[in-house]
């Protein structure tokens, strides 16, 4: 027996705010992949020669690079925040019988984010 299923329109995500932000969240993955590609270029140039690296750094000063970085930063920040807010819902931790409160797990995740960011900037830029 086949049951009738009402077809879903392809614009369902434009019909409500939560749906829209869900699709925006899913589209952040494009910017994640895009930045991976950029990192590969950066590594290749930095591993190549002083000239190649200098040219790349010069191109990073261009308005195009700044705009692309700003847009990518906005989307990736949205990815990071939505990701961290989901973490306590997925990671259910117990201490003995007690369930560790979501707020505590979220706090730990955000604290780690801060620490990791500091370590990265210290490693790359120096003390």
């Amino acid at each position, binding site marked *: 027996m086949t049951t009738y299923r009402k077809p879903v329109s392809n614009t369902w995500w434009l019909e409500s705010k939560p749906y829209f932000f869900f699709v925006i969240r899913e589209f952040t993955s494009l910017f994640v992949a895009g930045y991976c590609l950029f990192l590969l270029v950066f590594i290749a140039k930095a591993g190549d020669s002083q000239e190649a690296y200098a040219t790349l750094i010069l191109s990073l*000063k261009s308005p195009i690079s700044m705009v692309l970085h700003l847009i990518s930063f906005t989307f990736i920040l949205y990815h990071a925040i939505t990701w961290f807010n989901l973490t306590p819902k997925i990671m259910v931790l117990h201490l003995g019988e007690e369930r560790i409160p979501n707020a505590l797990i979220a706090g730990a995740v955000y604290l780690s984010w801060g620490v990791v960011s500091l370590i*990265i900037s210290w490693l790359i830029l120096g003390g």
Partner: protein
Amino acid sequence: MSKSNEPVLWLLFSAGGMISAMVFPMLLIITGVILPFELAGEVTFERIHNAVKNPVVKLVLFFVIALPFFHWAHRFRFTLIDIGLKPISFLISLLCYGGAITGTIVAAFILWRI
């Protein structure tokens, strides 16, 4: 019950999601403004050059790039299916995971060569 690749793909998706969330915002600030405009003083070419040549750094960079590629592949696959491309879902899977595998191989190649 038939075997499924989904748990492995989901694991790669979530590992890549966590790594990109933790690491990419700071990296974007560094490559976007701090390095080009020397906001933290001069960071020499030698410093960056020697860093990317370090085997431990290379290994870390490999995972920092490869896993987020798989995060993209898994999430984008379902995004495209959700917005109406279900009829070509096999082709989408092929392109997404194929893209992530290609990105991983390219990353390994670039890191190996330098």
